């Protein structure tokens, strides 16, 4: 369709950032379609006794391992005949109707088959999805999670960034590595930095499943999230797991008093070339139901690392909002994505976040890059530290609680410095390669790894090996901190260790306040039932959000 003489407007448009994004057309046969594929099964259920003998047109003896697990563990068989008899439209309207209580919606949604749930979602437009999210999320108070990573796996910088992130209001933080064998140091840096920034911060180390469990058992992390599930049998197997192994892993975490959630997201199956022609959302519904059936309290979804795929096809971002909503509708905690770069366009980046930010979710981001994106080892988040003041402005513009708060430069410098010194002390006490005063100073004032030096990586890696081999635990870290004068941080680590004795944060959507109190869907349940109900921002919180330091105040003019 080339024209001989170019329109100057089209030339300008072609050079806009959005044109760097990879858009692709639907390819239905392989499942490159966001939702509502003609290949998705037709909803059906047949129950004999208390067993599902047919689901979505397939007989029990033909079930994949995923279908069998979902049919046996994730569908409320008693309510299913009544729920399945309702039309998709009727159920979709229940979700949006403020007069239908959340509990009633849960009762119906937990008794549907995967294909039926996918169709209910396809009956909703994006504003209705947001309406439903406001009512259906489990916990009343919204929260936020960040990534703490850097391209050098520089432990001092990690500790400083973790402290700043906690101070800014992130209730959870997640790290991963450039070099796998640095994993144990990353966990240690987040533990120390996170507790320095705010007592009660939950931290995790996104690595191979067995390693994650081990550092969790040691008390170097307090929860796990990167426990992936998939929507087709072959991809699940390529992920080296089954619903049974993953459920066993979930029970293993709980047996050590550790919080955990699963991870999934639209696009992963087709990204791995094995979507079996099904739509991305239909396969994601299966993942959400596997999570439900495993008895795991929550799920991270919203496409996550595959967002380039749904982000490239029509209705993809709507499908992503749907996955978050389905998770809420099955009464699960949701850590709702927004955690990966997907566009060069600032407009698309912002629009992608609105469906989670405005209604509020348990963790709006999972997570926000609390470092510059060049240091984000999840390959970049949708928002990074350089976008922070934009985020704070948007909270203020719309009076919406995105979980973060304005902070002063002075406070940030002080907390970063304290975390870096605390890690220096731990390294010295445990005999790890020394952290110099210069490294502390550089990490305190750094923007990212561009501003810090290089560590001796082989020496650090030998030390991480030793850390794992010698079985160093959270208690050892607390002792080291106390001995070197960081008693308050040591106390915070012990407070986190005590959580695993009480187990309160095993309940749905739990986070930990600075005094050690746990808030979850059990004691802070979502009560939204129309205007004037549900989460209400306190005056104190609103004043905090209002007070961005760069706003001109009348009294100063």
């Amino acid at each position, binding site marked *: 369709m080339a024209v001989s003489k170019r329109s100057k407007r089209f030339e300008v448009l072609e050079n806009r950032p959005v044109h760097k994004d990879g858009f692709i057309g639907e390819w239905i046969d392989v499942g490159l379609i966001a939702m509502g594929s003609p290949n998705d099964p037709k909803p059906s259920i047949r129950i004999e006794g208390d067993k599902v003998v047919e689901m979505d047109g397939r007989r029990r003896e033909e079930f*994949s*391992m995923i279908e*069998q*697990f979902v049919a046996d563990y994730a569908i*409320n068989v*008693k*309510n299913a005949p009544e729920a399945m008899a309702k039309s998709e439209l009727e159920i979709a309207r229940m979700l949006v109707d403020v007069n239908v*209580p*959340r*509990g009633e919606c*849960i*009762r119906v949604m937990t008794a549907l088959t995967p294909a039926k749930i996918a169709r209910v979602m396809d009956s909703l437009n994006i504003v209705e999805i947001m309406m439903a999210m406001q009512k259906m999320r489990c916990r009343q*108070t919204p*929260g936020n999670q960040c990534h703490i990573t850097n391209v050098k796996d520089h432990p001092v910088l990690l500790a400083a960034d973790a402290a700043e992130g906690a101070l800014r209001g992130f209730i959870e933080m997640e790290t991963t590595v450039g070099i796998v064998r640095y994993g144990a140091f990353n966990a240690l840096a987040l533990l120390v930095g996170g507790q320095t920034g705010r007592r009660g911060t939950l931290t995790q180390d996104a690595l191979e499943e*067995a390693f994650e*469990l*081990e550092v969790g*058992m040691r008390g170097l992390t307090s929860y796990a999230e990167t426990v992936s599930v998939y929507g087709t049998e072959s991809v*699940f*197997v390529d992920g*080296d*797991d*089954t619903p*049974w*192994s993953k*459920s*066993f892993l979930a*029970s*293993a975490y*709980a*047996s*050590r*008093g550790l919080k955990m959630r699963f991870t999934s997201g639209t696009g992963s199956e087709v990204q791995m070339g094995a979507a079996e022609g099904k739509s991305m959302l239909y396969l994601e519904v299966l993942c959400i139901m596997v999570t439900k059936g495993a*008895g795991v*309290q929550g799920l991270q979804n919203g496409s996550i690392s595959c967002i380039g795929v749904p982000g490239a096809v029509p209705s993809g971002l709507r499908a992503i909002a749907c996955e978050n909503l389905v998770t809420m509708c099955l*009464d699960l905690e949701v850590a709702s994505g927004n955690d990966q770069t997907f566009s060069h366009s600032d407009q698309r980046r912002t629009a992608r976040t609105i469906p989670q930010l405005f209604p509020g979710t348990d963790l709006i981001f999972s997570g926000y890059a609390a470092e510059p994106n060049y240091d984000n080892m999840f390959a970049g988040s949708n928002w990074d530290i350089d976008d922070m003041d934009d985020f704070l402005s948007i909270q203020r513009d719309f009076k919406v609680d995105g979980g973060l708060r304005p902070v002063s430069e002075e406070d940030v410098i002080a907390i970063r410095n304290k975390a870096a010194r605390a890690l220096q002390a731990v390294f010295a006490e445990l005999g790890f390669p020394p952290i110099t005063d210069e490294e502390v100073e550089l990490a305190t004032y750094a923007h990212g790894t561009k501003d810090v030096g290089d560590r001796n990586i082989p020496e650090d890696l030998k030390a991480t090996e030793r850390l794992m081999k010698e079985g160093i635990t*959270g*208690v050892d870290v*607390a*002792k080291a901190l*106390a001995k070197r004068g960081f*008693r308050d941080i*040591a106390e915070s680590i*012990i407070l986190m*260790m*005590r959580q695993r*004795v*009480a*187990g*309160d944060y*095993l*309940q*749905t959507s739990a986070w930990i*306040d600075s005094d050690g109190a*746990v808030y*979850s869907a*059990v*004691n*802070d*349940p979502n009560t939204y039932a129309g205007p004037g109900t549900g989460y209400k921002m306190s005056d104190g919180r609103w004043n905090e959000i209002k007070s961005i330091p760069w706003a001109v105040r009348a009294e100063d003019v």
Partner: protein
Amino acid sequence: MAQINEQLIADVVRQVLKGVNGGTQPAAASGSGISAADYPLGMKRKDLLKSPRGIPFEELTLENIESGKVTFDDFRISPEVLKMQGEIATSAGRSQIALNLGRAGELTKVPDARILEIYNSLRPHRSTKDELLSIAEELEKKFGASVCANFVRESADVYQRRKLLKGDLPSAE
């Protein structure tokens, strides 16, 4: 951050119980009588919490670590507490969580290293059916973990039907 109104919560919990229990499995009738009203245990029912060898929750402090009275092994959840948390989950309408915490309660007795090994054995193409069945036997006989044992037996059947056992992969060496 959270705005918690005790009265509101009590109302909501009652509402939730009414709304949800009609549908899901009925709340566990047996047990310690713990419910959502006792939550969080770490604030409201510290009296019920202790380390596996019996050190009270309140004594799990930094001072006691320094004096050597408390060690890392004291920071472990007990099967009793997992059961209580399961009852809380059930009373809030979340029966699957209670099931998971039930399995977890059984696994508290299994050593860390063995848990990791069993997890790896449950991964696809790792075990023969007999190997899985003997793990189930071990869980049942050695650790009294009968729920977990049946779960592993179920996996053995599924893996056999779906060709996920060791040797089912044609290109394995």
